[in-house]
């Protein structure tokens, strides 16, 4: 973008090259942290509003206009709270665990092209890198559960580990199905390909199946209801973060919402054309890309929240049967179907 270009030139004219590049990196990191915090806070508010709507309540509406400052107040409360720790916890791991979760979420966020030019890290293995990063996050949850020295936290962590490892497969395979059509893992190129129609339209039947599988597996991977066995409050207290308080709890809480945003953003980028507008109606104004990207992402987030307040929770054996006996074989067949379609040129392109 023009603004970033002028800031870039200004920085490099002001300082020697190395300091300038370091300052630039720090600036980008701060911008992404800001996006992270704002997105996290307002997704919490959105969740509460949607929940209220589904349950015929009003939801938070006292703090600020329409309750817009409610989560800000909650965040301030969490910051000011005391950080407690159990007596025989492993302090080093206990303190380390939230950072695994939050750093992996933050790194994944840097890959998304919000508009054509607003993308921090356009790596040539984009989607694969996203999958790799998301597999790190679960380590934080496992460590948190173990180091709290609490049986509920431990059971929650074990469940989370099983769940994330299983459903990672489905996420990866359903994305791989789409990669067959794009022929590239780079996110910017995936969006370039979709100028001839969004991938879910290009790939019609197998793409739609892949999207359904991705949405189910993505919901499971973020540990959200109906797959929230990790923190099943009726059985496990609060699951792996039972012993966490204050800001450390907030890290887990924020990371969970950011992970939901990431899953929705992947879906928007891979299936629905990312920042591209429908039928190219605003192609002449590239800045509007951010609007389309966020609109698509928010629709998918709304879908995930809809799941949460509609379906009852699964049992752990049902959860694993769903993945290994239904989603995985379906996914593999879908992959072959898509490969044959691409080979025979049956995709729809405008």
């Amino acid at each position: 973008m023009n603004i970033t270009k002028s800031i870039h030139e200004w920085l490099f004219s002001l300082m020697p090259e190395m300091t300038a590049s370091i300052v630039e990196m720090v600036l980008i990191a701060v911008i992404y942290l800001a996006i992270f915090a704002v997105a996290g806070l307002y997704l919490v508010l959105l969740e509460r509003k949607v929940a209220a709507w589904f349950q015929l309540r009003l939801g938070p509406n006292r703090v600020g206009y329409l309750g817009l400052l409610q989560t800000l107040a909650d965040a301030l409360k969490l910051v000011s709270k005391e950080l407690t720790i159990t007596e025989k916890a492993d302090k080093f791991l206990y303190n380390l665990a939230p950072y695994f979760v939050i750093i992996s979420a933050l790194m994944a966020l840097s890959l998304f092209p919000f508009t054509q030019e607003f993308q921090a890290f356009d790596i040539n293995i984009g989607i694969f890198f996203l999958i790799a990063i998301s597999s790190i996050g679960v380590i934080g949850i496992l460590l948190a559960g173990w180091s709290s020295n609490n049986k509920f936290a431990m059971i929650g962590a074990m469940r989370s580990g099983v769940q994330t490892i299983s459903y990672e497969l489905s996420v990866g395979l359903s994305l791989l199905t789409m990669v067959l059509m794009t022929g590239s893992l780079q996110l910017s190129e995936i969006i370039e390909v979709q100028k001839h129609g969004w991938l879910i339209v290009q790939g019609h039947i197998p793409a739609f199946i892949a999207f359904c599988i991705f949405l189910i597996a993505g919901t499971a991977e973020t540990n959200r209801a109906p797959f929230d066995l990790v923190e099943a409050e009726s059985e496990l207290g609060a699951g792996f973060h039972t012993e966490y308080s204050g800001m450390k709890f907030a890290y887990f809480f924020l990371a969970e919402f950011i992970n939901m945003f990431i899953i929705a953003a992947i879906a928007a980028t891979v299936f629905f054309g990312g920042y591209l507008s429908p039928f190219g109606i605003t192609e002449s104004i590239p800045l509007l890309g951010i609007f389309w990207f966020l609109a698509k992402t928010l629709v998918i987030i709304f879908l995930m929240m809809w799941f949460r307040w509609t379906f009852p929770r699964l049992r752990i054996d049902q959860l694993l049967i769903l993945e290994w006996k239904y989603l995985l074989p379906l996914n593999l067949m879908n992959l072959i179907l898509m490969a044959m379609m691409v080979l025979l040129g049956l995709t729809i392109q405008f």
Partner: protein
Amino acid sequence: MEKFVFYILAIIMIVAAIASVSSRKMLRSVVYLLFVLIGIAGIYFLIDYNFLAAVQLTVYAGGIIVLVIFSVLLVHHIEMELEMAKLPAKILTGLLCLVGLGIFLITIYSYDFKVVENYKSTSVADIGRGLLSYDAGGFILPFEVISVLLLAAMIGAIIIGKGDKLTKNDEIV
């Protein structure tokens, strides 16, 4: 710039590696090992070998370390500490490590590395073609051998995991 990043990564890796073998809490060792593996991924990123770096993250950090953490969670309690080794064992290990380090250093310093001109980063497409090509420099044979090996390992794991149930079912039939 690259130099600094390399040295930071190297220091993190060395410190974590030493901490990993000297820590007396099992899960902490695993986490230090995780830092070493992530550091290796960082070095792959530094030399612009993105695919291998992501594989390192998925397979080692995301796969193997998670499995190790699982097994530690199942067998280990938080208050347990590992035993200290006896002095002769310590000295022997130290000597062996020194010999190993010496061999490594001698090989690295005696080999004369060539600086590659006009380096081009490998894309995923190149790797895919390399894995599936029959021509010279193609890796189709090792690729297929590994896939057969993995299949055998998977079937073996199922047989071991099912244990009694498999033979019992046979008897009923």
